[in-house]
């Protein structure tokens, strides 16, 4: 299971890195989004992969932490997802405005 997730993180990172090195703004947006999937999965996996052990407490009695998954990476990733959306939106708008201003969708605002 770990191997699959690690490989997935790797492939997503590679796709994202490839895209953020490209010259078109749209490629950059897609690249950043894919990269953020990879990063979110990576941070999430810091809490180790657990099946059937969600961090929702079962009853109100004393808690055995080993029965649950680590909630901290999850809280971090939850924040990261929302912030990721905000930055994607901001970047998308910047690229639209850049395109309107310069007429080019090159990351430098001009070809070449």
């Amino acid at each position: 299971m770990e191997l699959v997730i690690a490989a997935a993180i790797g492939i997503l990172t590679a796709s994202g890195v490839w895209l953020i090195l490209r010259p078109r703004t749209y490629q950059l947006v897609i690249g950043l989004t894919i990269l953020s999937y990879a990063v979110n999965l990576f941070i999430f996996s810091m809490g180790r992969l657990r099946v059937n052990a969600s961090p929702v407490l079962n009853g109100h009695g004393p808690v055995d932490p080993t029965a649950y998954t680590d909630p901290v990476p999850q809280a971090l990733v939850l924040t990261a997802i929302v912030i990721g959306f905000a930055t994607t939106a901001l970047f998308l708008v910047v690229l639209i405005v850049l395109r309107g201003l310069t007429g080019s969708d090159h990351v430098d605002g001009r070809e070449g």
Partner: protein
Amino acid sequence: MWHSGLLVVLVALPFAGAVLASLLSPNARNAEAWLAGTVTAVALLITATAYTSVTDGEVIRHSVQWVPTLGLTITLRMDGFAWLFAVLITGIGLLIVIYARYYMSPQDPIGRFYAYLLAFMGSMLGLVLSGNLILLAIFWELTSIFSFLLIGYWHHNQSARDGARMALTITGAGGLCLLVGMVMLGQMAGSYDLDKVLAAGDVIRSHHLYVPTLLLILAGALTKSAQFPFHFWLPNAMTAPTPVSAYLHSATMVKAGVFLLTRFWPVLSGTPEWFTLVGIAGLTTLLLGAYFAIFQHDMKGLLAYSTISHLGLITSLLSFGSPLSAVAAIFHMLNHATFKASLFMAVGIIDHETGTRDMRRLSGLFSALPYTATLAMVASASMAGVPLLNGFLSKEMFFAEAIEEHQYSLLDRAAPYVATIAGAFAVAYSIRFIHTVFFGPKAKDLPQEPHEPQRWMRRPVELLVILCVIVGIVPAMSIGPFLHTGVIAVLGERTPEYSLSIWHGFNIPMLMSVVAMIGGGLLYWRLRKYLQVCEEGPPYFRRLKGQRIFERILITVSWRWARTVESVLATRKLQPQMRLLVVSALLAGVWAMWGSGDVLPELSLHGLDPVLGVLWAIGAFCAVAAAYQAKFHRLAALILMSGTGIATCLSFVWLSAPDLAVTQLLVEIVTTVLILLGLRWLPKRSPEISKRIDGTTRLRRHRDFALAVAAGLGTAVLAYFMMLTSPPSSVGDFYLNNAYSQGGGTNVVNVILVDFRGFDTMGEIVVLAIVGLTVFSLLRRFRPAEDNKGLPYQQKEQEEFDSVRRDREQGETLQDYLLVPSVIMRWMFPVIILLAAYLFVRGHDMPGGGFAAGITMAIGFLLQYLAGGTRWVEDRLRILPVRWIGTGLLIAALTGAGSFVFGYPFLTSYFQYTEIPYIGKMPTASALLFDLGVFSLVVGATVLILIAIAHQTLRIRSRAVRASGDGGHG
């Protein structure tokens, strides 16, 4: 008994006055002057009443805890010496406030002037009353900043801006050195408390860090007091309004440097290093300043160099290290402030009345300004050191000290000669100042006909001149006790016997004075003709201008070097920068893993469910395909990207993270819609271009591909390693244990977000709000590129179809677009709202929460836009996203602040369970209210972003319709 809390009032009052002054109408000259005058008078009164508590070496202290763990307390401390300065600052300040009322022209924005002046006064009071080294450094920098603002007060004037910048650069840099010096001093003494530092003199002088500390503190003090080689900023600061020059650059701020040297004199002085460094600076400044002053044509320039020279005199006295010379130094600080402030104000009067300060043009003003002339003559006689005036007394003390042997060296032996020559120069420039301006033939071509000024413009000068005379004639009876109070505070038990009488018999200092008088007189007589015609600046030194050197250094460092570094290291292209980032990240990763001795764990598919495997086979394929298609097939790339997103989302479900899955799914929807809306504004791109790729492009692609593979491989290995090691004990256990007992919720992730780490979430939603508003404002002025202006070709095609068919109206096809789904979407609206409410309410205990609910709600709105179009929705629904954002922020902040009411820190939560009919037990934690804020803000920000983009199409269309309506059908 004087209450020590009044010290806080004393420092805070001018700042409060400054705020008030800046709020008044800029033209209310009288109101402003009354305000500033009252504030200053009250400060003076407070200072005056403190006198009985500081005599005989007593000290008033007042401490407020600031950062106790770092040993930082705001300690205000007034001893006799600080008291003397406080009187100087508030007393001369009051005179300046009155004088400035008449000096400043009605066109000047007077509110700003008084605000800066008062703020400066507060900083200066804070500086002299600081009982803590760090606090002292802070007030020190504040005086630099307000001095900068005051010099640049007439900021439409280029030279004022240059002078202000130079003063700030030099005194500010000195201030930074001082801060470091103060930290080192505090470390050596073991405390930042001034009293403790003053008591630790022996430790400090024998410490191995003594010399560097001394150098740093001297860098601060000498820059501030305009001592050689940092003297050149002061003449350039004369572009300030004259009241400012009189106040800051003669009486108070430049005295801060010598104040500091005197303050730490008991701790730092007496070593050979002190004597050499301070002595060279002081004596050089004394001599050069006096020499330069002779050759100035601007009256203020002359006074500026004279100030530099007199400060050099004080510095020299402090360098000698004997208690008697310290007495003389303190005495001269007071005397110099009195006569120099009055001289500056007199120059201000002359400038005000004649319109010029150029001594080559001014002549024979005595008949027009007899009163001012007399005052100026007395004051400049004091500056020259004429008997029966206060300047004479301290100068005699200086001469007497210069003869004494302190630390045997060439410098020490040269001191008496330097002193006498500088004395002669002082006589020469003082005579020139009076003789050229007030005597000789009457000047003809003055810009204005001079008259005696208003009474209240003269009063401050009169008062100071009278003080010069009184102190000069009966020193022991007038200034004596006050001076003693100041001296005893600095010297303590080392206070020597000294006599303030004006006659000490025929002795060597007397002889030196006589030589200086005669020599100075003769010198002026010889130079008289030359001075009328010569260039500005002293012979031989004219070319060597500190200002020019300073500017050259500034240009070299901030322009040439910066440009060189930029051209070598920087690029304006994004791609090389990104590549650099990726390569550094790779190298950092390799460096960290290299040689750690870890062996890659065996690759095993243990515990793998084939479904997860298939899921990620699809997810990975989607990611790679999206990367491949993003250039030419944007829509395909977007769909593929979403495929990866879904795979991620399902993995979250699989791996026990329901909250993440919910949020990811919802954000996925919004992101996709967002990018779909953006696609319309991108240029068409056809695959034909790709056939024309050259070698370098191909090479770049191969390199990028290699980088991408390396990055992917590295991350995968790292992730795999980490996942197979057993986790260290995590802070997560604490949250799991306490989520219910302290946060009142069973969904630990949500409890962390809204309760334990609520402050982080607060920051996060603020970011979201800022992004929303930024997007909105960026798009307000959006102009599309040329090829995006018309309708998209799909719409054109549909319109064409309508126009060809006889049975169809124009636009009918477009109207029926997505007919069935749109009906469903409309009907779904209440259901989605209910879903949002459900997600919100259960958030504290079950997966859900404010974020998820907010985005769901936003999607609800969004679907209406998709179904009915922007117009249709906005005819029926008034969504005010900015209000949602504002309400959200307010709720979140108020909930957080609510805990203040109960005496808890910000965002402390409170919870209990309430029985609600039909629904059952509901957690009603204050965190729920906070979550409501999060919800509202997320709705607002998301909707604002999406609507802002969606509206662009509408704007373009209406513009297109308008354009075609104008000329189309004809």
